């Protein structure tokens, strides 16, 4: 099966307005930046985006927000983005805020064939409104449902032509679960190698979860909070 596509244009073919898209990353770390820039160029609108964060004003998903291309965001934390806050408070943007662990597990469940699960996170808060509550081990838990997407777009450090992926450091974050939960999963990698070159012991995402893979043209890898110490 041929999974390798030549560039971001071919990779994102078939994504249409009003679809639901998952995008990996935590803050600006491990986001599929080449794909996001092309989503902007495609001029799509009405998108539902599932992503832990919403980028900053001029990078990451912030670029899609600027063009008002997103209808709904499903995230755990959306600070650091003025345009996001403006659109949310004015009601232009629908926002579903989910505890971070529940978001990760809902994506994992979506990819793993688990339709729903009980978690203690959010019990007694507004997150629990309208959700079934059950006691397990003497403690209340709320029912959370799985998330899937028409397309999942993930970013990896290395990938091979069979779609196997290796992530680097904390750029792994949501990428492995989202890779599992996409009906079509697109992997954007820094380095694409022939099949057989990656050590099978070191692969994080098995290629079975990946339908398309390409090597990104350039990675800016912007740092959101540059913190250092003196030598």
């Amino acid at each position, binding site marked *: 099966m041929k999974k390798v596509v030549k560039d971001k244009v071919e990779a994102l073919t078939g994504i249409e307005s009003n679809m639901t898209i998952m995008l990996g990353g935590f803050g600006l770390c491990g986001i599929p930046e080449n794909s996001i820039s092309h989503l902007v160029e495609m001029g799509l609108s009405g998108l539902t985006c599932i992503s832990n964060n919403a980028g900053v004003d001029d990078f990451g998903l912030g670029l899609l927000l600027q063009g008002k291309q997103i209808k709904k965001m499903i995230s755990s934390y959306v600070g650091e983005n003025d345009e996001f806050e403006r659109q949310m408070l004015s009601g232009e943007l629908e926002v579903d805020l989910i505890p971070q*662990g529940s978001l990760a597990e809902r994506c994992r469940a979506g990819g793993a064939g688990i339709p729903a699960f009980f978690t203690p996170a959010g019990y007694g808060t507004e997150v629990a409104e309208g959700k079934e509550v059950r006691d397990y081990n003497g403690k209340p838990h709320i029912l959370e449902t799985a998330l899937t997407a028409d397309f999942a777009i993930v970013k990896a450090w290395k990938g091979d032509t069979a779609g196997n992926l290796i992530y680097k450091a904390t750029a792994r974050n949501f990428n492995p679960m989202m890779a599992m939960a996409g009906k079509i999963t697109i992997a954007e990698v820094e380095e694409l190698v022939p099949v057989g070159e990656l050590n099978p012991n070191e692969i994080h995402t098995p290629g079975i979860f990946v339908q398309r893979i390409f090597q990104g043209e350039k990675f800016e890898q912007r740092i959101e909070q540059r913190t250092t110490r003196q030598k």
Partner: protein
Amino acid sequence: MSLDKIGIAKRIAQELCNGWYVNLGIGIPTLVANYIPQGIEVEFQSENGILGMGAFPYEGDEDADLINAGKQTITATKGAVYFDSATSFAMIRGQHVQLTVLGAMEVSQTGDIANWKIPGKMVKGMGGAMDLVASADNIIVAMMHSNNAGISKILKECSLPLTGVGCVKKVVTNLAVLDVKDGKFHLVERAPGVSIEEIITATAGDLVVPDSVPEMSI
């Protein structure tokens, strides 16, 4: 004199036990890592996917792929490990992390905590806070006793949207160390030079004051 943020962090650092895995929230909790008592070894977990979080990198060594949950560039300690977000919250929900330290806007005498939302003003999201407070056995809240307007943040009931219910066991503020049990705050220690009357005045929730309240040693 009441404690500053560093004083609060130093006092919380005294709670650390050898071998613990610890999750530190953003703000005062992050400072706790700078004051680990001698002879104590702990590992810091950051929920974006690292166990063995180290100091900030030297200038020029920053790596965009290596950050903490506050999105700050960090380093990894010897023996550190990276993992995905689902595994990270398995560590948290599964109670493999022994201590969580986090900040709060309000805490109630039944252990409720509010720290993620001010309706109409600040709606940034809860991030990992709800998962952390719902699961951790041992939660210490690091906060100022009152807000900038002088209004107590140690309350009978929280007024802001909750992050979790009945989960806080201990609060360390600029004035005091409080235990939360049986639906009341219990005064355990007072900050150096702070009187019991001062603490009673600054506490809106029910406060149990024992006959003798030692001063913290920082």
